[in-house]
């Protein structure tokens, strides 16, 4: 061995690694899969079915075959591998930058369970007797979430957090209508830092929305609530801890005020990752709550769905739950669709079964003590990261350090000094291989950024993330133009976001794109 002791390659011409990773995202200029289609190409020659053709009625028969992309197996595989390389997610990045989204690790073993034919090949219309296993999983997961929230029953039908919130508003509406107060109770109260889906769902359900703004402590102003509640109050729909990571210490008083006015209290528990096993919605007196299984309970977010939501309700509201519900008579599981007060279906069939299975497996693997440890670790990680972030010159945490599992920070000082905005810092951070998010609109915290480290990340991960932000903040001071011109190491440079606001141009599907842009 010719090198220094312990450094066998010291004499090779290898430069030392810089402090920050020299990340570069893959750039493939990958066309959309439909653009790669060539007539006649195929991935697999499907054998003739061997059963007689069935005459379908004209109403369901396609006039022409669907225009699916025609490609070979290799090209399909390569396409999706390339797309995955052009992505930033939990599996390759330190994904603490999407605060409020609880981007934790989803154990791979749980994917094994859902790709197992026993789950993957289930048909939603199979008779109850042939799906006792999956019904048992639904039933047991419901009982677990009821225990975690303190609620009486839980529906696993909603396919997202917002769908669960909508299910809750629908139940609130049905509850008041059943008491003859539906017309009179036409207002829903929410807060500025509650997730905007609360206001949006209430409005979609026909309610007038009253928003409470934060007071000087960053919590919703309880005196404003006192002024807002009354005979027209249908419900309070509130997130806690709010998107700031601040836990409202007077939450029980909020609930009591709404109850005194005859309204219901509905808890958005999508931010429950710091609360598992610590406190429960029912303990604060809530009548309804919801979880996002694709956050706290580790199932994939699935790029906007289908994910999984869970709506929990008190005994008084149980008759209104979406359906059908899964029931257990002590020996057998069955579906109950005969529930006259039910608000109906939130989506077809039972729910997003693969995510229900994953969440069930995740909870079973951890147990009650493990869930509490998740919460404690998430809070600890967050407080460590906050300690690191607040050492960066120009970063601050409005309303102080009293945070649970996430923090909405501010670059106001840095921005006033350098003219660089939070969005630009986030784009530059992507050059170092991490994702970053600002805040919902409107920005209440100036130049916001929201970080939520969850329990998944190591101290080294958090140090690396903080070091990247520190570096970018420093760049902003030394060379604001550099930050404003980012990204440099990314798949694309900039995209023009204006089409997102223009129905004439936005295209959520290839068919829409073809119609709006290619015809």
């Amino acid at each position, binding site marked *: 061995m010719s090198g220094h002791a312990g450094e066998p390659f010291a004499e090779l011409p290898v430069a030392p690694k810089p402090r920050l990773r020299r990340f570069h995202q893959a750039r493939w200029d990958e066309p959309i899969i439909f653009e790669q289609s060539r007539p006649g190409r195929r991935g697999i020659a499907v054998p003739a079915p061997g059963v007689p053709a069935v005459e379908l009625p004209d109403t369901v028969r396609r006039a022409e075959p669907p225009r699916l992309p025609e490609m070979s197996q290799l090209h399909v595989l390569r396409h999706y591998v390339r797309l995955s390389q052009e992505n930033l997610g939990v599996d390759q990045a330190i994904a603490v930058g999407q605060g409020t989204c609880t981007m934790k690790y989803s154990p791979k073993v749980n994917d094994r369970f859902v790709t197992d034919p026993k789950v993957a090949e289930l048909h939603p219309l199979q008779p109850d007797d042939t799906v006792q296993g999956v019904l048992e999983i639904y039933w047991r997961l419901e009982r677990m979430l009821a225990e975690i929230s303190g609620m009486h029953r839980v529906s696993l039908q909603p396919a997202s957090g917002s769908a669960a919130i909508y299910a809750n508003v629908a139940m609130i509406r049905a509850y008041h209508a059943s008491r003859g107060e539906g017309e009179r109770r036409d207002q829903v109260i929410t807060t500025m830092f509650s997730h905007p889906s609360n206001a949006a769902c209430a409005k979609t359900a026909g309610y007038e929305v009253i928003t409470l703004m934060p007071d000087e402590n960053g919590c919703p102003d309880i005196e404003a609530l006192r002024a807002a509640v009354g005979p027209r109050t249908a419900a309070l729909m509130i997130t806690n801890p709010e998107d700031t990571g601040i836990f409202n210490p007077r939450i029980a008083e909020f609930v009591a005020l709404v109850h005194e006015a005859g309204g219901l209290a509905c808890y958005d528990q999508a931010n429950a990752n710091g609360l598992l096993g610590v406190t429960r919605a029912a303990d604060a007196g809530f009548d309804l709550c919801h979880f996002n299984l694709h956050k706290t309970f580790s199932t994939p977010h699935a790029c906007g769905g289908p994910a999984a939501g869970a709506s929990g309700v008190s005994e008084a509201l149980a008759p209104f739950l979406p359906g059908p519900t899964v029931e257990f008579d002590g020996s057998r599981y069955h579906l109950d669709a005969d529930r006259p007060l039910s608000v109906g279906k939130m989506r077809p069939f039972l729910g997003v079964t693969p995510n229900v299975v994953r969440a069930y497996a995740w909870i079973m693997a951890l147990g009650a003590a493990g869930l509490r440890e998740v919460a404690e670790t998430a809070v600890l990680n967050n407080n460590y990261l906050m300690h690191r972030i607040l050492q960066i010159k120009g970063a601050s945490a409005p309303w102080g350090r009293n945070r649970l599992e996430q923090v909405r920070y501010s670059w106001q*000082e840095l921005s006033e000094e350098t003219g660089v905005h939070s969005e630009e810092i986030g784009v530059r951070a992507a050059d170092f291989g991490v994702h970053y998010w600002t805040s919902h609109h409107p920005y209440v915290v*100036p130049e916001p950024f929201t970080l939520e480290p969850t329990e998944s990340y190591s101290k080294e991960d958090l140090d690396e993330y903080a070091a990247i932000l520190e570096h970018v903040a420093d760049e902003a001071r030394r060379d604001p133009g550099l930050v404003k011109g980012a990204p440099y190491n990314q798949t694309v440079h900039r995209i023009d976001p204006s089409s997102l606001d223009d129905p004439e141009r936005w295209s959520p599907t290839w068919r829409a794109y073809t119609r709006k842009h290619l015809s």
Partner: protein
Amino acid sequence: MTTDRPDPSRTAAGHPGSSRAAGGTGDPGRAARPGPPGGAAFTVGLIVNPVAGIGGPAGLKGSDGAGVQLEALARGASPRAGERAALAVRALLARRPDTRIVTVAGPMGEDSVRAAGGVPELLRLAPGDPSSPRDTTAAVEAMRDVDLLLFAGGDGTARDVLDGSPSCPVLGVPAGVKVYSGCFAVSPAAAGTTAAEFGRDAGRAGSTGSPTSTGGTGSTLAAEVVDLDEDAYRSGRVSPLLYGTLRVPAARARLSGRKVGSSAAAPGSAEAIAREVAARMRPGVRYVLGPGATTMAVGRLLGLDTTLLGVDVVQDGELVAADVTERRLLGLVEGHETCAVLSVIGGQGFVLGRGNQQIGPAVLKKIMASGGLLVLATQQKLAGLGGRPLLADTGDPEADALVAGHVSVITGHRESAVYRIRPATEEFTA
């Protein structure tokens, strides 16, 4: 308002206390001189623009220029800047009785100091009668040995102060019609309190001028001086221009904060708010529409020719009167159930007393006894207040007290917020 950092594009100062929009270099970090050792006197300069604000109640949207001032007097307005300056001096002396106050003879300061029970030290200056912007500038130039310069006026007066290149930090007592610059305290009493606090630390060597944005007293910040072209403003166009920056005590919460126009708000939101206002309008009730783009959208929705900057009265879908004076308005609300529809000044939170002085104390008392207030703002505007309350400052604490509490703020169609509103004076002297 920006924090204490040199911004090469804008903040170049010829004098430690001020910086102009163009030209010069300087040392914006140094603010007040530390007082003499042994905690000796704190010296404040006071300059009053006696005609500031005179055009407001008269519906003239400003008071710049002798013609407008005469017109205001003819419309029955009385000067009130001196009175507001006295309120500030009273609050200052209550907290720091040993303050020396250097000022100009007569209505440009002396009268206010005496009215507040103080003993003025007079500069050797002979202002014109009536006084002019040149007198303000000359007074600023003569005040080289003060720790803090208080001036009473509006944005126009702030520009005159800027022209005098003050050598020390400056604080505005809001007394004009347009008070959009960041150098003003939220009310006269708040100006006095802020000055006293600043003085407490000005006596401590080394505590001033520290480049900090934490809001600790004694330190300073750069605040923008903006002004509108009054002729454009009268004809309905709002276009503030940045004239430069002044150094102000860093007691941030007590400064007005620069006005944020409503143009930054999401398009369509003014229309959504207007739809909600229209839906809430009841037959037989008179609605007093204050100035602003949002209230203007209400008029537009009703198909009425209401004004952007004036106060208009509508009822049952008809325009009862446009661009009224305080006097006229008092007659119009008399004997009618009346509701005031007011927008919020972005960044500052004023609902009453800025730009809508026509809705004076007497009018407000009548309105609060009948239809009350409908306040309009986008969520963005409320968010921009950073948790600070909405403010009322009609100049009459009794009238302001009537609106104190929580008010429903319409933020969109079938959307509202419940928000705290306080008399500006109370908010910062309690």
